[in-house]
């Protein structure tokens, strides 16, 4: 299990890249979920197959003091078909971690109900049926006193299936009220 959850004390997290500039005319909103109550899971289903890439932009609030992690799974696949690499800093240390045969990719988010994380996850070539799927993420949060976290990361889903659904599930605790999950499609 990754990062944020293991953060208590000296910790860290990592990841980053992306967050580049899509051409404005090629960027379309697919669906958005704004939480009106604390929930453990957010789901995007029936994702249209008409784009080249997806971008999931999140502002996530939580209540696990040291920060939290959420699983990110595609097409309901909960088998050990994921792997990841992170580069991260927490204001004190810089570290890099990786994991193989994971049962999900991960999203890291704040343990605070007022200072949300910023997560920008690019899901590349998601509709392609000839190759595994790669996600790159930029994820940050800062809670002023307790901790901060910035990371560049990537995870891989070892399936050639087109991605038709995305499920984000809090590792522990919840995704809190007023969190926003917005899914966009990027056309070629």
């Amino acid at each position: 299990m990754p990062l944020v959850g293991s953060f208590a004390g000296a910790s860290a997290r990592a990841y980053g890249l992306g967050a580049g500039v899509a051409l404005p005319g090629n960027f379309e909103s697919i669906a958005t979920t704004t939480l009106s109550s604390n929930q453990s899971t957010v789901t995007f289903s029936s994702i249209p197959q008409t784009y080249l890439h997806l971008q999931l932009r999140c502002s996530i609030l939580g209540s696990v003091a040291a920060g939290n992690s959420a699983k990110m799974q595609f097409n309901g696949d909960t088998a050990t078909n994921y792997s990841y690499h992170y580069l991260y800093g927490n204001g004190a240390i810089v570290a890099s971690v990786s994991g193989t045969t994971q049962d999900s990719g991960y999203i890291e988010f704040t343990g605070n109900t007022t200072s949300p994380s910023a997560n920008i996850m690019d899901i590349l070539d998601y509709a392609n049926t000839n190759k595994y799927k790669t996600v790159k993420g930029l994820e940050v949060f800062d809670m002023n006193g307790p901790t901060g976290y910035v990371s560049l990361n990537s995870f891989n889903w070892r399936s050639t299936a087109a991605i038709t659904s995305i499920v984000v599930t809090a590792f522990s605790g919840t995704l809190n009220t007023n969190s926003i999950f917005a899914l966009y499609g990027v056309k070629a």
Partner: protein
Amino acid sequence: MAKTYEPISTQTLGTAPTTVTFSSIPQTYTDLVLVFNSKSTTLNYPFLTVNSDTGANYSRTYLAGSGSAATSGRQINPLFIYLGGDAGHDASNFNYNNIVHLMNYSNTTTYKTILSRANNASTGVDLVAGVWRNTAAITLIDLKIPSAGVFSIGSTFTLYGIKAA
């Protein structure tokens, strides 16, 4: 289909100011993205304030790579958000660029989180988390330079809005 990602305003500097301001920002988007390519008269690091708030209401955590070392640091209660750690302006070339994401900027319930990815091929690359501890909607952004420096003529700044469904 309605436009999702739209330019709000672009500035190409014809003078050399110490501050670049985007004001009267429309409240009709979900996120803002500020893209800029700039140079200065001295080696320095641009910083940001919002809504003209110069109080100790910000914080930041950064990850920086200089080419020889990776570092991470934090500032608690600063008067602004530095947008870089190793990537900063240089005085001779337009090597510096940055893409700053201001997430959920118009909501009036949560503090505002800013993600900055700065690059200078000569000095380094940075990722920054910045927070403005205020629940007010962001209506104004000031990009500034430390004293003794100015933004050089020819620097470009574009503010985009991203609208969720």
